[in-house]
């Protein structure tokens, strides 16, 4: 929070702030009350709607949560594989972009620009509909993983490239001067430091991967969101509003914890790396640590 925007409040400003706070608080309260009344009117607060999700005594509560738990595992599996593959492909892309000779660098850059310009939905759709035509009939999860990998590996490559660019040039020069080849200097000196410097950004990217697993509905993979959508079709459930609130809460909690982890790692690393403090400020790269384009 920026506090330079206003003076330390005096008695009058404090009073005005208090009055404004109370008024806004009352307005918020009014909104909540109206929303609850409206929900009650539409019978959305009943045991029938909430019971299966929040009341352990409800007969179908264990079944519902067993199903949600299974789907959560599916979400994590897809996100895990997508992250592993994206890291591998992303590192390879970053290394080839950094070391590529001019005659084929445009190929790497072009591929990356192409993949960055397309919606991830299209990549997942493409993987699921086109690969089977070429005899690559895989489980649904792999179409999702392939789509997510195509999309995220480019972003991870950019993050790593930003990490390499954030290192002082003396690192590479020192490596070369003790007789390492360009490739060795990249692998032994630059990459390890780039990974460390970019760890917060990589964790933030995990949030994106986790969120994008929800696109599994396109390939009918039963991760959290699709499973929730199937569950609410059940005649005993019929509670999309409540179900999606719970699913949203699960996602928000997990991803919030992950972004806190990223901030913590960033604080720890900031004093122990040769990289410049703010990678977002490096021209020609767009990755920044915890804020930035992780959308």
């Amino acid at each position, binding site marked *: *929070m*920026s506090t*330079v*925007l*206003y*003076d330390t409040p005096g008695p009058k*400003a404090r009073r005005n702030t208090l009055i*404004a*706070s109370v008024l*806004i*608080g009352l307005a*918020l309260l009014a909104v909540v009350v109206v929303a609850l009344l*409206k*929900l009650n009117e*539409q019978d*959305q607060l009943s045991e029938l709607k909430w019971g299966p999700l929040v009341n352990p005594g409800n007969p179908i509560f264990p079944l519902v949560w067993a199903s949600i738990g299974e789907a959560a595992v599916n979400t994590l599996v897809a996100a895990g594989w997508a992250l592993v593959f994206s890291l591998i492909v992303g590192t390879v892309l970053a290394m080839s972009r950094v070391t590529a000779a001019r005659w084929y660098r445009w190929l790497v850059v072009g591929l990356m*620009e*192409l993949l*960055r*310009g*397309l*919606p*991830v*939905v*299209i990549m997942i*759709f*493409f993987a699921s*509909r*086109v690969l089977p*035509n070429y005899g690559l009939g895989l489980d649904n999860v792999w179409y999702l993983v392939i789509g997510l990998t195509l999309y995220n590996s480019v972003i991870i490559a950019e993050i790593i490239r930003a990490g390499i660019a954030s290192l002082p040039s003396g690192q590479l020069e020192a490596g070369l001067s003790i007789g390492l080849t360009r490739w060795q200097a990249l692998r032994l000196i630059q990459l390890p430091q780039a990974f460390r410097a970019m760890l917060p950004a990589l964790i933030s990217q995990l*949030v994106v991967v986790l*969120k*994008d*697993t*929800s*696109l599994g*509905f396109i390939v009918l993979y039963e991760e959290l*969101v699709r499973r*929730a*959508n199937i569950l*609410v079709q059940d005649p005993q459930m019929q509670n*999309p*509003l409540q179900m*999606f*609130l719970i*699913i*949203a809460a699960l*996602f*928000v*909690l*997990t*991803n*919030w914890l992950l*972004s806190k982890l990223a901030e913590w790692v960033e604080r720890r690393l900031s004093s122990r790396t040769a990289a410049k403090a703010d990678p977002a400020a490096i021209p020609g790269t*767009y990755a*920044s640590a915890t*804020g*930035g*384009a992780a*959308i």
Partner: protein
Amino acid sequence: MNVIIDNIDLFWDGLLGTLMICAYAAVGSLVLGVVLGIFRVSPVPPLRWIGQAWVTVFRNCPLTVVLFFCAFGLPELGVDFPDFYLWVGILGLVLYTSAFVCEAVRSGINAVQPGQAEAARAIGLTFTQSLGLIILPQALRTVVPPLGSVLIAMVKNSALVGAFGVGGELFATVDTLTSARGLPLIPVLVGVAIGYLIITLPAGALLGLLERKVAIAR
């Protein structure tokens, strides 16, 4: 290739549909995001909490869940209007994107040198004046690159609205052409991909130009 040329009018309509959705969503999320960004630096604590809560919820929740919630949850509340899914899709995009716009604006405000705000206060400007006349004009220039990335990401995310069955949008064109007209999938997908690239690649290039144009020497 013939598939694309023969159906160029449908692809064109899809492109216009996507642009229309994105224009509404961009205006909505920019306005909402800037307002929320101001909330987050305001001296009134409840406003800061609202901004904080908004960003925490919508940045960490998948767009799919936001859209499902709007599309299947709102009817449960008895909400209904003409072109329901189209507007719900735009609403979902606005809710989701505004959180990212808010974060970008806030980081831009924090990036303005403290001396600027101090000078504004020293000549007697109020909070609103110093924010509106001194801080925001500078902050908005520094946030052009991140805001641009957010908006380009939003264009790509808008494909999801099409996946929800909103017709007349670029991604929905795939379904129209392959299911209803029985055309082969690969050329249709390539055509749609080209459609998105027509929007995102020039937008990225334009953003680079704009970034150099509005950059402030510090």
